[in-house]
């Protein structure tokens, strides 16, 4: 709907803005455009169908080491010009910082990734509607206790972005993903449990209704009858998706920005053991298996594989151009941004290097433990500066290697530092999550589970 250029045109627009740099001034234009379709099904009907098209531009100006930024949620010419003018004006009020400055081409070759789903743009809307309706039917037909869904959804997104700077960056790329998501409601004896199941991919052929429905039904029904456990010490068994969540928290602490500002508990620890020697992980957006795979970062540098922890030893941090320069290293191609923000630093494709043993084999070795299937309160219960960790958990108790009764309304408390060091087993069961993270089963002994 929004009149916006595609492909090379988007790069042309970014370039035209960057080319307006005045002497002594650096200008960067980040231009993005996306379309998406979302279908929500409920009780055999289409509850809503959304067709969305968005486009926008973010402009960064650096002059005398002062940085200003402005964005517009449209690509019409007047708005683009206003964004440039505002960014220039904003730069006047920021304080100079010798490390401010745009990215410059660093010679790293872009990974040969093809992230564009060729068939997806041609799929008729009716087919997408059919998937959402079928997903609801499949979910409610699997178990008599699953009497309904909160929502069954199909969603896709196709996006392209260009970055051009007066320092010589000129890049453009595009990608797309689609997913199915269902929230199943399981009811038994007056009690209701809700849980979601997902299937994620690029093309429609990557998606599986059975995978999403089975997952939602299993997760909702296995928690029926859950009770509050007694307070005790247990061995935690994290499912791959829970490991991915914990890994995401750790990834945030290995962010060069947090490190520079003294906000990371790992800031002085490069070269030291911060985790069990069993644990290694990377942030590798060049791995096409990750849905976080990406060719360029938010400043237009090629994405690359960054090893963060090898055999428990911290290898380094993720950097964008600013944090790399200021810390005396270089960008690791980890600039993260949207149209409406300046580049931050973030991991996009964290993955644990698989260890040994299947999920079942690791469970079998646990005498008295808790298989964690969901964690709540992460945004309030995990302090990214101190590493203090206190979250609500649900899951299934493990006794003598076998799954036992479900529990809810309990918490686990530790620190992230301690959890990493105490890892006793790393599974081989690598699973890729919708957020681009790759998780495996982890076993962590001797953690306090608080209940009644």
């Amino acid at each position, binding site marked *: 709907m929004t009149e916006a250029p595609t492909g090379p045109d988007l790069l042309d627009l970014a370039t035209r803005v960057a080319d307006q740099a005045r002497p002594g001034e650096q200008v960067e234009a980040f231009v993005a455009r996306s379309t998406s379709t979302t279908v929500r099904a409920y009780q055999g009907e289409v509850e809503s169908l959304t067709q969305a098209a968005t486009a926008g531009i973010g402009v960064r100006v650096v002059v005398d080491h002062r940085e200003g930024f402005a964005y517009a949620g449209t690509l019409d010419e007047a708005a683009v010009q206003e964004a440039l003018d505002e960014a220039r004006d904003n730069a006047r009020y920021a304080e100079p910082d010798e490390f401010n400055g745009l990215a410059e081409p660093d010679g790293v070759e872009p990974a040969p990734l093809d992230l564009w789903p060729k068939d997806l743009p041609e799929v008729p809307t009716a087919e997408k509607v059919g998937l959402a309706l079928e997903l609801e039917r499949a979910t409610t037909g699997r178990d008599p206790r699953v009497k309904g869904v909160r929502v069954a959804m199909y969603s896709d997104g196709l996006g392209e972005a260009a970055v051009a700077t007066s320092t010589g960056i000129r890049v453009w790329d595009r990608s797309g993903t689609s997913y199915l998501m269902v929230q199943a409601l399981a009811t038994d004896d007056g009690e209701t449990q809700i849980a979601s199941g997902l299937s994620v991919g690029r093309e429609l052929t990557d998606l599986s209704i059975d995978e999403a429905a089975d997952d939602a039904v299993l997760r909702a029904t296995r928690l029926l009858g859950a009770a509050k456990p007694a307070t005790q010490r247990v061995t935690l068994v994290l499912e791959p998706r829970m490991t991915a969540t914990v890994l995401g928290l750790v990834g945030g602490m290995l962010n060069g920005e947090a490190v520079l500002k003294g906000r990371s508990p790992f800031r002085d620890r490069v070269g030291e053991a911060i985790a069990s020697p069993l644990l290694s992980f990377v942030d590798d957006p060049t791995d096409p298996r990750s849905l976080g795979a990406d060719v360029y970062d938010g400043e237009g540098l090629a994405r690359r594989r960054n090893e963060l922890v090898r055999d428990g030893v911290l290898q380094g941090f993720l950097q964008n151009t600013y944090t790399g320069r200021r810390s005396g290293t270089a960008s690791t191609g980890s600039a993260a941004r949207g149209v409406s923000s300046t580049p931050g630093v973030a991991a996009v494709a964290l993955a644990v290097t698989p260890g040994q043993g299947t999920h079942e084999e690791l469970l079998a070795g646990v005498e008295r433990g808790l298989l964690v299937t969901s964690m709540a309160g992460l945004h309030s219960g995990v302090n990214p500066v101190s590493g203090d960790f206190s979250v609500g958990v649900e899951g299934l108790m493990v006794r003598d290697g076998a799954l036992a009764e479900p529990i809810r309304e309990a918490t686990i408390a530790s620190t992230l530092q301690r959890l990493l060091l105490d890892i006793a087993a790393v599974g081989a069961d690598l699973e890729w999550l919708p957020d681009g993270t790759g998780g495996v089963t982890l076993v962590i002994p001797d953690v306090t589970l608080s*209940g009644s």
Partner: protein
Amino acid sequence: MLDQDLIQRTLAAALRTGGDLAEIFVEDKASSNAVLDDGKVEHLTSGRDRGAGIRVIVGDTTGFAHTADLTLAGLLEAAEAAAAAARSGGGGVREVALERQHAPRPHEVSVLPETVGKGEKVELLRRADAAARSAGAAISQVTARYGDSRRRILIANSDGLLTEDDQVRTLLSVMAVATGDTGMQTGYQSIGRTVGFELFDRYDVDQIGREAAERALLKLSARPAPSGTMPVVIGPGGGGVLFHEACGHGLEADLVAKGASVFAGRIGEQVADPRITLVDDGTMAEEWGAFAVDDEGSVAQRNVLIQDGILTDYMWDLLRARKEGRPRSGNGRRQSYKHLPMVRMTNTYVLAGPDDPEDIIASTPKGVYVAHLGGGQVNTATGDFVFGMTEAYLIEDGRITEPIREGNLIGNGPEVLASIDAVGNDFAMGSPGMCGKDGQGVPVGDGVPTLRVPALTVGGTA
């Protein structure tokens, strides 16, 4: 914001192939932000988002499309996309006669932030930073953020509604980090109101900085939080999020209708201690969740949800209210023109009760006093919730003693509501919040008097 003729032609196009209701939501939002971090004003950001979302409702199906192109051509294209999405059957031409409605504004804004120089906004950050750093030598890092937004919206629909609102919000927050032998601790304080720059005539920026720093310093000497089930006293204004999470979400009609709420089918029942009266109030002047009309054009209302412990009503948006044939309650909100509205809270609070706050503490032999709760999360189907304590103390022998480090509280909404055994007479509103639901964030407020929950699980600190 948009010519009336343009609106009428857009709505007519949206209904050209039939439909029960067509709606256009136009938004023009300008925002400015500044961040001071690590002793430096890092950057200033200006943003402008302008566009329209068009929805067509046919039976139980909603078609939705949005566009940033507010010309006739752009609007007609979006209207047709929304109509096609709603798979409308019928047909026929419908004239839409619009009647402009003026909703009373909860209060007037006296200083529009766009009229204030950027230098003046930056100066506030410098003052907050200096105040926080001077609070103690252990303060090692300070981040101060300033943000303002002016969001003008227009809503028109084929029922003839035409209304507008102009929402101005201004916020300043400070996060301080203190470093000591026990590691790093953080303290946070913020002030935000649905007002303009006059906010800073009334609230002292230095004090915001100092309070953030003092919270961080206090936690340096804090003991690990105990773990287990114990009485928890929540301080005035510090724990509104408990009610937002523990029962507010469960009273949203969309979740209730789908059986995803523990409060479904319980209207008229005693769900809480008789001392509890819970209100959601979009008219509360200047509060973070206040507005003149919601994002579907309903006038903001004060809605009593629980009266003296009895569940009286849920919160409603246009879709659910139409389906039930009842009035809306002014709770239809959306993050932006790019989002479909749904049932959302505004300012949610518990009225003051009969008890003396000092007596509440004195009659608690052993427990935890929570001065400030952090963010929270709830599973509406089971009512189980979790939220963080950002400032808390031990209660020993009926007195507040040592500070404890942050940890989570976990409990079950309906159980907590029914078990509250003391409600203070000292009501206060809390800090501005952002509530997330299905990926959309909207500004909300909350408030509580001092109150006691006899048994909550404290997650503890390792």
